[in-house]
């Protein structure tokens, strides 16, 4: 850390130029929370970039070791606070493996619906904030207008707009009502044409494309080496999606495409997310069409679960990538160890290499395009 705290020495160059050291963040309009990037500039070109994380560390992995399994779900809400449903889901999947519980079919379908709705909400937020990063303010508020509807639906269903605590061990919190399903269908009908509007307004805007196309390109090999996941990986053209390749909650029964990018640029990553929203709409429609009857909670989940000693790993395709949880139980009422494989944290690792040689404006474009949530990076 000592090398980022002190400004670098003068550059030895034939021209008499001076390198400049800039702290981007933690208080900066577009670091998406509290990320600090220590930049060394040569004019407007970056010669060194060091991301500095940890400003939002809350120690949830350690907290989980003194809390019961039901309580941990509440903790998971706080990692990726803009898409908390997959967080709930992945913990429940891991804990259900330990407990030997299987969620009923209706609960599985509802979990899929919720995760995809949350993916829409999360990608809308990404799209809006990425617009702000590149200087377009209006798409942000359009995106939030639609995101508000998803949050309204969540509020109607489970009472919270951000930290849901909806997916529980062995099922889900409550069943959906016919009115709720009607409203969701109404939203989907409204939402589909809006995607075209976003594409016209932002995605295919020539200025936006000039800003993001060919910027921050990641080759497929690099993406795999860095362990990227989610739209960041697929933007580079690597076809990996946990929903397809390691299906959970019955994702194998849905028909959807995995959008892939071409050159792995910021625009590809962005456009992957926009197309994923459309795929999410498709999945939700299929799920609503085949929503089975039955209970939403499996019987036999104790109030204070004490799984047998053992370990389990579960991973889901969260909005930001492959979110995994490794749980170890020692037979007590709380996990012996919980480890989170947070996609934002892994995706952030590429910044240090990819920023070198870019302009200051590109820092924002690249940082925005990998779509980090600092709550998940620092946990």
């Amino acid at each position, binding site marked *: 850390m000592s090398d980022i705290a002190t400004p670098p020495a003068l550059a030895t160059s034939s021209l008499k130029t001076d390198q400049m050291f800039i702290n981007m963040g933690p208080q900066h309009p577009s670091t998406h929370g509290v990320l600090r990037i220590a930049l060394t500039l040569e004019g407007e070109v970056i010669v060194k970039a060091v991301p500095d994380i940890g400003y939002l560390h809350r120690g949830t992995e350690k907290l989980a070791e003194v809390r019961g399994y*039901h309580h941990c779900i509440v*903790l998971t809400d706080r990692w990726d606070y803009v898409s908390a449903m997959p967080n709930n889901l992945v913990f429940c999947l891991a804990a259900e493996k330990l407990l030997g519980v299987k969620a009923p079919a209706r609960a599985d379908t509802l979990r899929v619906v919720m995760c995809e709705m949350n993916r829409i909400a999360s990608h809308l937020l990404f799209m809006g904030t990425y617009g702000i990063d590149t200087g377009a303010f*209006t798409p942000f508020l359009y995106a939030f207008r639609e995101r508000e509807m998803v949050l309204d639906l969540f*509020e109607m269903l489970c*009472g919270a707009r951000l930290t849901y*605590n909806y997916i529980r061990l062995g099922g889900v919190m409550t069943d959906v009502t016919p009115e709720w399903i009607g409203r969701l269908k109404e939203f989907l009908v409204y939402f589909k044409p809006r995607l075209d509007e976003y594409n016209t307004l932002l995605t295919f*805007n020539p200025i936006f494309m000039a800003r993001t196309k060919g910027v921050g390109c990641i080759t497929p090999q690099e993406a795999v080496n860095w362990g990227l996941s989610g739209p960041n990986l697929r933007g580079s053209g690597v076809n990996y999606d946990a929903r397809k390749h390691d299906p959970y909650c019955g994702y194998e029964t849905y028909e959807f495409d995995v959008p892939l990018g071409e050159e792995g640029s910021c625009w590809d990553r962005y456009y992957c997310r926009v197309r994923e929203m459309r795929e999410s709409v498709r999945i939700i429609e299929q799920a609503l069409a085949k929503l089975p009857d039955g209970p939403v909670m499996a019987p036999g989940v104790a109030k204070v679960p004490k799984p047998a000693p053992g370990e389990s790993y579960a991973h889901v395709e969260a909005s930001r990538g492959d979110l995994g949880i490794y749980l170890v139980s020692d037979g007590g009422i709380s996990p012996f160890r919980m480890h989170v494989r947070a996609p934002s944290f892994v995706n952030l690792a590429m910044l240090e290499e990819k920023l070198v040689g870019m302009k200051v404006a590109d820092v924002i474009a690249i940082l925005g395009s990998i779509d980090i949530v600092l709550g998940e990076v620092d946990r």
Partner: protein
Amino acid sequence: MIGYFTNIFRNSRALVSGHWITLRYMFKPAVTIHYPDEKLLPFEKFRGALLFDANTCISCNLCVKACPSNCIQLENATNEAGKKVAKVAWYSIDFGKCNFCRLCEESCPTKPKSVWHALDYEMIFTRRDEMVRCWKQGFAYVGKYFDSKSKEFKDPEGQISIHEIPPRRN
């Protein structure tokens, strides 16, 4: 040469169509609400401020155990002989810690629920004391906070009821 002009044409068309969208929305009404003058009524299941009823509570400690952030504390009432009875002497929720997760409400065995989420989303705390809300027999559902300066219980100042009678699920 032709490519140059088609490029210009395509880019200008994309820019103009973007402007057309913003112009169209300009002539549509706003979707926002004027917050302090208009307030949204949350849905029935909304997890707002926690309320407590000291009359129905049986002091079973389930909510204390269910709370993931240890924000609930209670103390049993005792009768003249000093034996514990199924009544609550005092009960407190620390809203500085509360997650609004509804685990306490779900675990409450009484009918109607003794601790439940109201629809109130306008909780304002100007002091740390106000975050810890206390209840006893005779206190209103909203509870009071203990003012550490004047050493007395006071009504919370920052609480505004969105709804007159908060729903109370069985």
